């Protein structure tokens, strides 16, 4: 029999659970589980009253384990961990069992089935809790300084934001000047602000702040340490190949390295033919020409825009960009409005696959049509053909789906390939940061909705277009989100890390190196134990994914919280059916 003293609380959730699960029968069944000394039903486990009752039970009954069967652990793990802490129980001896989202709510049609399942789920939770050990979160003091990598609109705005809440900033830009893409733009949608002027203003603000130290021609080349206390090596590339390394100590790092514009291959939609431009090249040409847009001194009369170049590519291409770059429809439509403002007689043809002027940018699309732009739609498998003509014009042939596949021939002065965003080539930085990239090769956030600027490397945040295509206002919004996330760590002065990491049993380990090979965070290293070579986990580097656990040929690694013994005990708990007592 177990010598544990556990408390189990089954929540009614005000009927959300108790309407579909016989919670009293569940209680009567699990009260006989080994190690359970308190089993109660509560109307609402998260309410103050219930929490008080649990705290009292933990203290009076000297409980050493807590199981709350209620909603999804996503909602209240931290609530009950903190309750345990207040009651004097180690928070890592608490298990939340999901009997709402994964039981009552999904079996509203089967009270008997749901009740039996709740019993099995709770039995597994009890079995797991019986095998927990007290763990302490790892507490790390934080350095009130931050490093911002990338000096475009996102990095500049983030640096100012951090500085204004009292966090010193090191701002690092790889190129010779701050400003990034936006500093190359003239008038931008939706407010007609000039990109160059916006950036000039931001750079002035950066200069005004004494607690921002900025570097151009500089790169982040090495990063060590962990959240709250990173050591970063900045390499400044001086004149004549002179390199200076500067070491800084920071609590958080914000990555704002932006994007590259898609570069079409030679011959892709006629790229390489005189007069065929990418979208950024065309914008530059537009900005340069005052008044009526001209090229080689001649008025541009006919313009063809080919959309989705380098975006939404077919699967069978090598390393295709499967994603939609989403900013380009707006940018191209906006460019065509700029053209028609300066030359209302210009004829503009937009060859689209789909039009994605989302949100309020739809108004731009409407305006462009009112101004006379013509939209034609081509099929995914029937792209337009762009060819050079002997008269210096460019012939574009397209089958228009909007007129039932009619073949059109347009003679253009300029063809604009509406190119999207691609991940910035930056192998060294990816290597230094050890940040995972997604299928589209942009940096990956932890959760697109709930944790949109955090990465699996705690204390390293991403924002702007390094994370995926964004326009400049979305970029700044995410930069400020990264500022807030950084500040929430750095202003508190310390961080607590979950101690649910991998652990090696040195007596079982015979160092074969398999685990080291599969850890992308370099958190496993060879070390000595009583004269033998064994694996050792670096606690600051381990992310707790458990990827090393199944590759160990000697079962010498466990993930705390999900140990081999716990998983097997849970499997047994799930299987003891209905009201069968333990034999």
């Amino acid at each position, binding site marked *: 029999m177990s010598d544990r003293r556990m408390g189990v609380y089954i929540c009614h959730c005000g009927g959300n659970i108790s309407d579909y699960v016989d919670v009293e029968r569940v209680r009567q069944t699990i009260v006989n589980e080994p190690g359970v000394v308190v089993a109660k039903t509560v109307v609402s486990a998260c309410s103050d009253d219930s929490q008080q009752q649990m705290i009292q039970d933990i203290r009076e009954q000297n409980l050493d384990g807590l199981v709350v069967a209620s909603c999804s652990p996503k909602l209240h793990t931290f609530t009950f961990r903190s309750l345990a802490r207040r009651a004097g129980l180690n928070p890592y001896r608490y298990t939340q069992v*999901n009997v709402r*989202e994964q039981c009552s709510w999904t079996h509203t049609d089967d009270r008997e089935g749901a009740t039996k*399942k709740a019993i099995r789920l709770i039995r597994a939770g009890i079995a797991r809790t019986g095998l927990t050990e007290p763990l302490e979160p790892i507490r790390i003091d934080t350095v009130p300084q931050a490093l911002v990598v990338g000096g475009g609109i996102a990095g500049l705005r983030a640096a100012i934001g951090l500085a204004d809440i009292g966090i010193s900033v090191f701002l690092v830009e790889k190129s010779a000047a701050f400003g990034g893409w936006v500093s190359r733009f003239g008038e931008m949608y939706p407010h007609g602000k000039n990109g160059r002027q916006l950036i000039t203003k931001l750079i002035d603000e950066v200069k005004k702040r004494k607690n921002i130290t900025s570097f151009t021609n500089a790169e982040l080349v090495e990063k060590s340490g962990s959240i709250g206390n990173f050591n970063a090596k900045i390499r400044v590339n001086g004149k004549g190949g002179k390199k200076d390394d500067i070491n800084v100590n920071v609590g958080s790092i914000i990555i704002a390295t932006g994007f590259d514009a898609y570069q079409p291959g030679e011959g892709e939609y006629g790229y390489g033919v005189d007069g065929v431009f990418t979208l950024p090249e065309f914008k530059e040409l537009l900005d340069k020409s005052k008044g009526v847009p001209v090229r080689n001194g001649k008025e541009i009369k006919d313009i063809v825009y080919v959309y989705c170049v380098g975006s939404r590519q077919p699967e069978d291409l090598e390393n295709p960009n499967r994603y939609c770059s989403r900013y380009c429809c707006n940018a191209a439509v906006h460019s065509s409005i700029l053209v028609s403002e300066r030359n209302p007689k210009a004829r503009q043809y937009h060859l689209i696959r789909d039009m994605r002027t989302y949100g309020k940018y739809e108004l731009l699309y409407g305006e462009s049509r009112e101004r006379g732009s013509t939209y034609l739609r081509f099929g995914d498998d029937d792209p337009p053909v762009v060819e050079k003509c002997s008269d210096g014009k460019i012939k574009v042939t397209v089958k228009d789906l909007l007129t039932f596949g009619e073949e059109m021939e347009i003679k253009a002065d300029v063809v604009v390939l509406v190119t999207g965003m691609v991940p910035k080539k930056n192998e060294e930085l990816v290597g230094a940061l050890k940040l995972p990239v997604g299928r589209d090769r942009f940096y990956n956030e932890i959760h697109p*909705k709930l944790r949109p600027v955090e990465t699996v490397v705690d204390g390293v945040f991403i924002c702007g277009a390094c994370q995926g295509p964004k326009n400049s206002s979305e970029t700044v919004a995410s930069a400020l989100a990264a500022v807030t996330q950084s500040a929430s760590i750095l202003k508190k002065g310390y961080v607590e890390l979950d101690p649910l990491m991998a652990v090696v049993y040195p007596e079982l380990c015979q160092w074969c190196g398999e685990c080291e090979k599969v850890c992308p965070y370099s958190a496993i290293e060879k070390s000595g134990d009583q004269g033998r070579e064994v694996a050792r986990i670096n606690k600051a580097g381990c992310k707790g994914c458990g990827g090393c656990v*199944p590759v160990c040929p000697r079962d010498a690694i466990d993930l705390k919280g999900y140990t*081999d013994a716990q998983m097997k005990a849970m499997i047994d708990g799930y299987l003891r*059916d209905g009201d069968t007592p333990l034999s």
Partner: protein
Amino acid sequence: MAGQAGEGKDFLPKILVFSTHNISDPGIDLAGSSHMHYPPTVVVASMPCSSGIKPGWILYAVERGFDGVFLATDGEECAFLPDCAERTAQIARKAQELLSQNGYDPQRVRMSAVCSVCAEPFTNHMKEFSEALRKLGPARKG
């Protein structure tokens, strides 16, 4: 007797699902929040990442009485490991080998990516898997 159902119409296959905290669990939760129904003989064990599942646990689950094990993986969305999908596929293959070696049908292991909003796909997976296992019959012999 309840829980001892044998072959035939009364047989309700027991399914163990391994899911992940950040990606597939929210999808499975969403199925519940949307009151979608799948058999109550399905239970879900959530882990940080599907690459941390030991093939031995899958064999253990079948030996102890589960009729099938489903790996609800992060697919390409895993925030921990860029090659998570391949790793989990490897784990599933190893588990299938283990099952075969021990006289169980390898079709008792299935895997599929379940995203954080994949409520309906998950529900359908459970119904289909349950049906397939019903045809296979109980895993435990005797």
